[in-house]
């Protein structure tokens, strides 16, 4: 008995080696490099100079005037972080509002039809993100499909300026991340025992009350998983805000990229990236804590 346990333990450890290598080389290593860079001085053209300093962290929050060294609060950084947070939360909400009925629809189809609908949900993954984003651009730009349609039918007099606004970024992100919301929701709803709906009706709960008091609490793990899968990549989104938001509606991802490119301030980029990571962690902890609270108290 003990021998068996010992043997399987050893086998389990051997099996974990590829995962350990991947995690070390792919995640822990780079993360460590970012942490180190965040405490170094920027090189003149790019890269870093190996001198310890907390200047990068100072620069995350404050601007230093080049001429007289006066210090001002870096409200532009705050604006970018705030916009990222706002757009990510909105993206998650939109994805949920569209994704929940979609997942419900699929889960309530006859079992042999569900594979077809799930297949449709996964089709966007077949195409490159960049190409899909350009396709959205084609739809919402001033001479695009949407505006042409609205103009031709006399619904509007002048084209709607959607492209290069926060709305465009929102539309793009909601579209891109929607499947990540639908799939975990589907998995949760699929496991849901629909007889509980009848039990709810039987016990004097109206449709809305059954949804709120029975269905949503039970499929909550799916809602949590879907929201995390949408919120986290939204917060760090790069391609979508870059193309649909134009240069001026930057999100954190674009701002960080800027520091490693034209900005030539790798330490600042590294510090911003770590700040983003911390925001994500805090947001996730808060979210999980709030949503796993017992219903009896709520």
């Amino acid at each position, binding site marked *: 008995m003990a021998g068996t346990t010992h043997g399987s333990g050893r086998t389990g450890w051997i099996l974990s080696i590829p995962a350990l290598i991947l995690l070390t080389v792919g995640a822990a290593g780079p993360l460590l490099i970012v942490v180190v860079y965040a405490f170094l001085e920027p090189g003149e053209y790019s890269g870093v100079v190996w001198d310890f300093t907390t200047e990068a962290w100072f620069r995350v929050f404050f601007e230093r005037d080049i001429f007289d060294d006066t210090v001002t609060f870096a409200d532009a950084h705050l604006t970018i972080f705030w916009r990222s947070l706002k757009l990510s939360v909105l993206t998650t909400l939109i994805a949920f509002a569209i994704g929940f009925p979609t997942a419900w629809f699929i889960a309530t189809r006859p079992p042999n039809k569900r594979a077809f609908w799930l297949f449709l949900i996964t089709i966007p993954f077949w195409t490159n993100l960049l190409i899909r984003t350009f396709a959205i651009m084609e739809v919402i730009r001033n001479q695009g499909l949407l505006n042409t349609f609205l103009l031709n039918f006399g619904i509007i007099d002048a084209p709607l300026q959607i492209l290069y606004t926060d709305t465009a970024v929102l539309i793009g992100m909601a579209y891109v991340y929607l499947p990540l919301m639908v799939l975990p929701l589907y998995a949760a709803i699929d496991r849901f025992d629909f*007889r*509980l709906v*009848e039990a709810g009706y*039987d*016990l004097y709960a109206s449709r809305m009350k059954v949804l709120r008091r029975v269905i949503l609490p039970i499929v909550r793990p799916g809602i949590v998983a879907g929201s995390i899968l949408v919120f986290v990549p939204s917060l760090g989104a790069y391609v979508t805000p870059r193309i649909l938001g134009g240069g001026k509606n930057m999100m954190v991802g674009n701002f960080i990229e800027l520091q490693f490119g034209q900005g030539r301030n790798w330490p600042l980029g590294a510090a911003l990236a770590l700040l983003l990571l911390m925001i994500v962690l805090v947001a996730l902890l808060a979210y999980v804590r709030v949503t796993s609270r017992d219903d009896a108290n709520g």
Partner: protein
Amino acid sequence: MTEAAVEARSARKEYGAGEKKVRALNDVSVVINKGEFFTLLGPSGCGKTTLLRLIAGFESPTAGMILLGERDISTMAPYDRPVNTVFQSYALFPHLSVADNIRFGLTMQGTPKAQVDARVAEMLALVKLEAFADRKPQQLSGGQQQRVALARALAPAPEVLLLDEPLSALDLKLRKEMQLELKRLQTETGITFVFVTHDQEEALTMSDRIGVMRDGQILQIGGPREIYNKPVNRFVADFIGETNVLTGTVEQGGVRLPTGDVIAVDNLDAAIQGTKVSLAVRPEQVRIGDGALQGRVAETVYFGTDTHCHLRMSDDTEVVARMQSPPSGDTGLQEGQTVSFDFVPGAARVLED
């Protein structure tokens, strides 16, 4: 003077359309009295659950009416009906504690909190689950879950409690206990129970009245004794308990068996002389020892308190006699031995097919 709690008036339920149309309930009419333990008994697919779902409001009748007292509730939403259900699967809310499951209906009705708390405590005591109030349903045994389902459905004090094969998932011993428990709860609360089952023994032990169903129709409504002793047709006789079915020809004052023996039968009024009929006799109404009938002992089967003796008559008709096992366990009957037997007077009844 009995008052109607629930009534079905020519209730019909059809599923599907066109060629595939299935009639699950075929113009059923039944009046269930206030305070009664009424059982709908029948094999699966007989329409008993459909009738229950019509009363609960999960389905609405294709034709006909469902009345609660005097009110037509055919189209009323289930959450507006003062009727609660104990589901076959229990359907307890997995995210809520035992107490919160019981609380659910009361909260949804908008009952003041103090009143709700008192009622929940009362219900927990009623089903003896006070110690489990804070557990989740998954942490309970099948029997305990069953009691939570009962308490949850009884908490809002419904006019009618519907029970959809609630005991079918329990093992035999627990089922027996719960049968008595259910009967006790019904007597204590005075609520009308409509109980659905395919288990004839369950129906006989618990019910005030039984409606035997088949193919979307109610074949017979009556008290357990009436259903058991005076089944209207062969299906009811077969379905409720074990029965010997013999065929014979109607004669003056009785039925002549192929063996030549004539059996006295009470309910011959409608039967025309010379026609072939089926006769039903319960095994416990067959007496071995003396009598006009002869049979060879084909087999004796020991069941503990009872022993079944399979007798073969000269025309090969088999008659099963049930007798109490003697203290020694040995009935003294030898296989192959020929014995005399007869039926308890009034026991043999003519059956409609």
